[in-house]
C-alpha cells in the first residue's frame, strides 16, 4: 500500500517535527542521504538522533567525565561498564531511568525499567546479582497544594492519592519483575518532594558478575555473520508517539495509539539464562538487547561499533500484532528481545540452546561489508541508510545556558529567623516518623532481597548493601544516592555531595569505592536554566569522581522531566560500586555493644537540611561542598578500622543529622544510646545539622586507643560521643526518649500513607 495515498486531511505537523527533529536536522538528513528519506527512514533517524540514543544535548558535557582508572575494564560506550574484581572476575553495572513510562503506568513502567537494565547487564555476559532503585515522588502530604494532611483511610484528595498510587504501583512493579527473574533488590533510596508530583523518577541500577575473559561486547564482527533475534515477539508496544502509516490509520484511532509496554519477567528469565549459555558456549559473536528504539537502535549500534554494514528482513521478525508496518516493526519497544550476531557454522548450536529454553532462533539477516544498513521486507527495500550517518553524524548541540536569577536569594539563610526547638526530642520523633526518614522496610520487604544467597543480611537497610561473589574472596558493596534537596539550591555542590555520600556509604559497609554510574534527571535542556543545571551537575560529578578516584563507567540521561513548564529539581543519581577484600568485612549500621565515635572533619549546617524543610518548611542555605581530602581520609580510616576488626558498626551522618543517624543505629540494633554531642552554638545545628564528612562508628572499649591512632595516621578528626546500651536514647543536649518510642517511630508511616488496601 502506498503510504501517502490515504493520508487523512488533518492538521498534522510535518513528520520530522512529530519525531522531535528540527528543521535543520531534517535538512541535514536530506543532505546525508542525498535524497528525501521515506517514512521508515525518517523514523529511524528520529529515534537514533533522539536524546536517548544520541545524547545530542548532553554528550559534550559528559565527555569531560573521568572514565578510566586502574580497575576499569570497560568504560562508557558499551551496554554497561565493567570493573575488575579479582584476577578472574569482573563486576558489570549500570543505572537507567524509566521515568516517563512510570508516570503513565507505574506498575508496568517500573517493571519494564527493571527488565531493561537487567538486559544491559546480561548482554555483557554478566550474571546479574543485584538491583537497586532510586525513587523520587511528589510530596505525599502535598505541602503547599493542600494544607490539610489527607486522612489515612480513603483519602479523597486526588493529588495525594496520585502519589500513593504511584508509590504502590512502582514498588510492586519492581518487586514483581525483580522477584520473578530472581535478582535481589538490595538497596535504594526513596525521596519525596512536591516538584516530582507530575514527574516521578524511577532509576534502577543493576550489578552483575562476569568472567574477565568472557566479557561480551555489542559489536558486529565477521562479515557474513547471521543476525539472530530471540525472545518475545514484536508488537506495537511503546512505539514512538507519532504514527502515520495509512495502513494503521485505517484501523481506527484506537489501535493507532502506541500501547504501554508490558513486562514479561518469565521471558526475561529465559533470555537471561539462554544468553549466558550462548556466551558461555561461545555460540555468539556479539549481543545487544533491544531497548529504546528496539530493532533500529540495536542493529544500527551493533553495526556502528563493529564498523560493518547490516541487512535485515522484517518479514522474518516474529510479530505479536497483525499488519504492522515496517516503521512500527523497526520502532517497536516490545520488551524482552535480544539481537545477536552468530557465525553461520555456529547457528545450529545457538538454536539448540534457545530451544532448551523453549525459544526459537529467528534469522533476520546478515552482517555485510560496507557501512550500509538495509532494511527489507521480503524483496521490498524499506530503508537504506549509511550507518555512520545515524551514529557518528548525529547532531551535537550546545544549548544556551544561564544561571537562574533568583539563586542568591535562596542561598541566603539567616539562622536568626529560625527559632530553636523547644523540645528537640519531639522534633526527632517527628523526623523519624516523616516519609523522608521513616523506615523503608515496607519497600524492601516487598523485594526479595535475599535470593541468590549473596546478600549480607546485616547490610540490608544500611548505608550500602554488600554482596559476596561466589567464586571469589572479594565482595562488592553498592549504594545509590542523589542529594536533590541540596542540588535544587546549588546543582554543582549537590552533585559533589551525591558522589561523596555514595562513596562514604560504600566505605561504611567495609568497601573501597572504585567506580560509579550515574543517571541525570533534568527538565528541558533547551531552557537555559535547565541546561545550566545539567552543566553544573556534570561538572560537580566530574570533579568529585576525579577527587575520589571513582571513575564513571556509564549512565543514562533523562531530560524533559517537566509538566506544564514546571521542571523537576536537578536530580543526579549516583550508583556507587565498592569492593571488599573479604566478605567477612561486611559491616552494617546496627548498634553493637561498645562506644560511639564521630569521625571526620565535616561541620553540621542547617543549609538544605531535612530539619529546615520539615520543621520550618524551607529549602534554603548554601550547602557546603565536601572536603575530598578528608573524605578520603575517612574512607581509609573506615577500611583500616573494619579490616582490623576495630569497627563493629558504621553509619554515615546524612539526612536528619547526628540525631537521626544515632536513632537509626539504635533502632536497627534494638539497643539504647547515651551520648554527649559536640557543642554548637545552637542545639538544632548540633542535633539535626547536615553536611558531608561525618561518620559514626562503634568501637569496643579495648580498641579505643587503636582507633584513635588510625585517625591520627590518616589525619582526620575523631571524637568519642558516648556509649551503646540501655533502654533509652539519650543525647545531650536535649534528648531523652525510651527505646520503645524510637522503635515505633516511622515503623508504619508507609503503611499508613500508601496501603490503601485493595487497589489494583
Amino acid at each position, binding site marked *: 500500500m502506498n503510504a501517502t495515498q490515504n493520508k487523512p486531511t488533518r492538521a498534522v505537523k510535518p513528520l520530522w517535527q512529530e519525531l522531535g527533529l528540527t528543521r535543520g536536522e531534517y535538512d541535514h538528513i536530506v543532505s546525508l542521504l542525498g535524497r528525501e528519506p521515506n517514512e521508515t527512514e525518517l523514523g529511524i533517524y528520529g529515534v537514533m538522533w533522539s536524546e536517548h540514543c544520541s545524547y545530542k544535548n548532553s554528550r559534550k558535557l559528559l565527555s569531560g567525565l573521568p572514565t578510566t582508572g586502574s580497575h576499569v575494564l570497560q568504560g562508557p560506550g558499551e551496554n554497561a561498564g565493567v570493573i575488575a574484581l579479582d584476577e578472574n572476575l569482573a563486576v558489570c553495572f549500570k543505572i537507567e531511568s524509566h521515568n516517563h513510562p512510570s508516570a503513565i503506568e507505574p506498575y508496568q513502567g517500573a517493571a519494564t525499567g527493571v527488565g531493561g537494565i537487567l538486559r544491559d547487564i546480561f548482554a555483557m555476559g554478566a550474571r546479574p546479582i543485584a538491583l537497586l532503585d532510586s525513587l523520587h515522588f511528589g510530596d505525599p502530604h502535598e505541602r503547599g497544594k493542600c494544607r490539610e494532611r489527607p486522612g489515612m483511610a480513603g483519602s479523597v484528595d486526588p493529588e495525594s492519592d496520585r502519589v500513593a498510587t504511584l508509590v504502590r504501583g512502582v514498588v510492586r512493579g519492581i518487586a514483581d519483575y525483580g522477584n*520473578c527473574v*530472581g535478582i535481589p533488590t538490595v538497596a535504594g533510596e526513596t525521596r519525596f518532594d512536591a516538584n516530582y508530583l507530575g514527574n516521578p523518577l524511577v532509576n534502577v541500577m543493576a550489578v552483575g558478575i562476569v568472567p574477565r575473559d568472557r566479557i561480551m561486547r555489542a559489536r558486529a564482527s565477521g562479515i557474513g555473520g547471521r543476525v539472530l533475534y530471540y525472545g518475545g515477539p514484536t508488537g506495537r508496544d511503546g512505539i514512538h508517539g507519532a504514527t502515520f502509516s495509512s495502513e494503521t490509520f485505517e484501523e481506527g484511532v484506537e489501535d493507532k495509539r502506541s500501547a504501554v509496554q508490558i513486562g514479561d519477567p*518469565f521471558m526475561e528469565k529465559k533470555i537471561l539464562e539462554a544468553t549466558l549459555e550462548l556466551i558461555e558456549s561461545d555460540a555468539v559473536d556479539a549481543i545487544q538487547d533491544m531497548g529504546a528504539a528496539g530493532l533500529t537502535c540495536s542493529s544500527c549500534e551493533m553495526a556502528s561499533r563493529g564498523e560493518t554494514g547490516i541487512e535485515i528482513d522484517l518479514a522474518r521478525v516474529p510479530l505479536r500484532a497483525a499488519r504492522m508496518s515496517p516503521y512500527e516493526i523497526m520502532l517497536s519497544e516490545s520488551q524482552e528481545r535480544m539481537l545477536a550476531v552468530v557465525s553461520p557454522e555456529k547457528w545450529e548450536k545457538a538454536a539448540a540452546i534457545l530451544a532448551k529454553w523453549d525459544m526459537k532462533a529467528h534469522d533476520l539477516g546478515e552482517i555485510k561489508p560496507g557501512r550500509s544498513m538495509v532494511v527489507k521486507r521480503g524483496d521490498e527495500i524499506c530503508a537504506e541508510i549509511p550507518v555512520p550517518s545515524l551514529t557518528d553524524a548525529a547532531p551535537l548541540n550546545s544549548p544556551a545556558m544561564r544561571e537562574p536569577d533568583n539563586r542568591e536569594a535562596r542561598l541566603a539563610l539567616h539562622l536568626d529567623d529560625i527559632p530553636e526547638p523547644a523540645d528537640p526530642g519531639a522534633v526527632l520523633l517527628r523526623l523519624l516518623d516523616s516519609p523522608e526518614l521513616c523506615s523503608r522496610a515496607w519497600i524492601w*520487604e*516487598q523485594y526479595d532481597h*535475599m*535470593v541468590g544467597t549473596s546478600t549480607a*543480611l546485616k547490610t540490608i537497610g544500611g548505608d550500602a548493601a554488600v554482596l559476596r561473589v561466589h567464586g571469589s574472596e572479594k565482595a562488592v558493596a553498592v549504594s545509590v544516592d542523589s542529594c536533590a534537596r541540596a542540588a535544587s539550591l546549588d546543582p554543582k555542590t549537590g552533585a559533589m555531595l551525591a558522589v561523596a555520600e555514595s562513596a562514604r556509604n560504600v566505605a561504611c559497609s567495609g568497601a573501597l569505592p572504585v567506580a560509579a554510574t550515574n543517571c541525570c534527571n533534568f527538565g528541558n535542556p533547551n531552557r537555559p536554566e535547565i541546561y545550566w543545571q545539567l552543566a553544573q551537575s556534570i561538572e560537580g560529578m566530574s570533579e568529585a569522581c576525579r577527587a575520589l578516584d571513582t571513575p564513571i563507567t556509564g549512565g543514562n540521561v533523562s531530560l524533559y522531566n517537566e509538566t506544564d513548564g514546571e521542571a523537576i529539581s536537578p536530580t543526579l543519581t549516583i550508583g556507587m560500586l565498592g569492593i571488599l577484600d573479604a566478605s567477612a568485612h*561486611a559491616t552494617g549500621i546496627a548498634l553493637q555493644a561498645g562506644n560511639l565515635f564521630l569521625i571526620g572533619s565535616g561541620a553540621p549546617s542547617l543549609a538544605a537540611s531535612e530539619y529546615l524543610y520539615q520543621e520550618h518548611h524551607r529549602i534554603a542555605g548554601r550547602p557546603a561542598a565536601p572536603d575530598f581530602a578528608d573524605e578520603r581520609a575517612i574512607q581509609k580510616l573506615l577500611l583500616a578500622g573494619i579490616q582490623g576488626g576495630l569497627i563493629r558498626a558504621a553509619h554515615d551522618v546524612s539526612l536528619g543529622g547526628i540525631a537521626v543517624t544515632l536513632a537509626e543505629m539504635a533502632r536497627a540494633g534494638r539497643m539504647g544510646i547515651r551520648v554527649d554531642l559536640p557543642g554548637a552554638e545552637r542545639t538544632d545545628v548540633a542535633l539535626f545539622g547536615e553536611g558531608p564528612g561525618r561518620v559514626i562508628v562503634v568501637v569496643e572499649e579495648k580498641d579505643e586507643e587503636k582507633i584513635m591512632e588510625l585517625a591520627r595516621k590518616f589525619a582526620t578528626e575523631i571524637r568519642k560521643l558516648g556509649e551503646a546500651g540501655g533502654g533509652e536514647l539519650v543525647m545531650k543536649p536535649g534528648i531523652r526518649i525510651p527505646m520503645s518510642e524510637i522503635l515505633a517511630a516511622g515503623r508504619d508511616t508507609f503503611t499508613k500513607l500508601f496501603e490503601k488496601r485493595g487497589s489494583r
Partner: protein
Amino acid sequence: MRFAVVVFPGSNCDKDCVRALRDVMGQDVAEVWHTETSLSGFDAVVLPGGFSYGDYLRCGAIARFSKIMRAVKEHADRGGLVLGICNGFQILVEAHLLPGALIRNRSLKFMCRPVWLKRERRDSLFTARGEDFLRLPIAHGEGQYFIDAEGYRKLEDEGRIAYRYEAPPGIEQAENPNGSVGRIAGILNAKGNILGMMPHPERACEEFTGGVTHGRWIFESMIAHLTGERAARAGIAA
C-alpha cells in the same frame, strides 16, 4: 548422600539450594532439568523456590505437568525424600502430592523477611535435628496455606504439620505473616517422606545470608535419616 535439585524454567533458588547442599552441607548434588524422566540414583529430591513458568496462571500450576514430576512421584512412592521449598511447595500442592492449596498472602503483598517457626514434629525425617524454634527467611506473595476444616483436622490428627509460624516466648512477631490456616508453614505427606514448606532453609545455612544457620537443621535431619537408612541396608547386606 546424593541430592537432586530440579530446575524448571523460572526456578530461581535452584543454585542457592545446590550451594547450600554442596558447599555448606558437603553433599553430592546435581541439577536435574525438568524434561528428565528419571530420578533413579538420587536419595533426595529438592524442588526449589522461584517462579516456575513465571507463576503465570497460578504458582506451580504449569510446572506440575512437567515430565520430571512423574519421576518425583515415583521417587516418593519408593520412599525417597522430597523437599519442596516455596515454589517447590506450591508445585507439590498443585500436583496433589500434598493436600490443600497456597493462595495469595492476606496482606496482598510479597513478603521477604526472616520469621520464627515452631517445629511441631520432632521425629519426622526432616525435623529430627536442631531445636524447636527456627528462624528462616520467607519470600513469597502466595504462601497462605488453605485447607478445609476436615483436611486440617486430618493433618493435625496425623501429625503432619511440620512447622507453624510462631516465635519463641518473649520474642515479638506478627503472629501469622501470610494468613495461613493454623499458621501452617510446612506440612508432610501421610508417609512422612515429602515435606513442603514456604520458608527457605537454604537461605539460612550461613550467618552471612541468614543471620543464623537454622536452615541446616532440616538438611542435617534428611542426611542423618538417609545415612541411617544406608547403614541399615549395609547391615542387612552384610
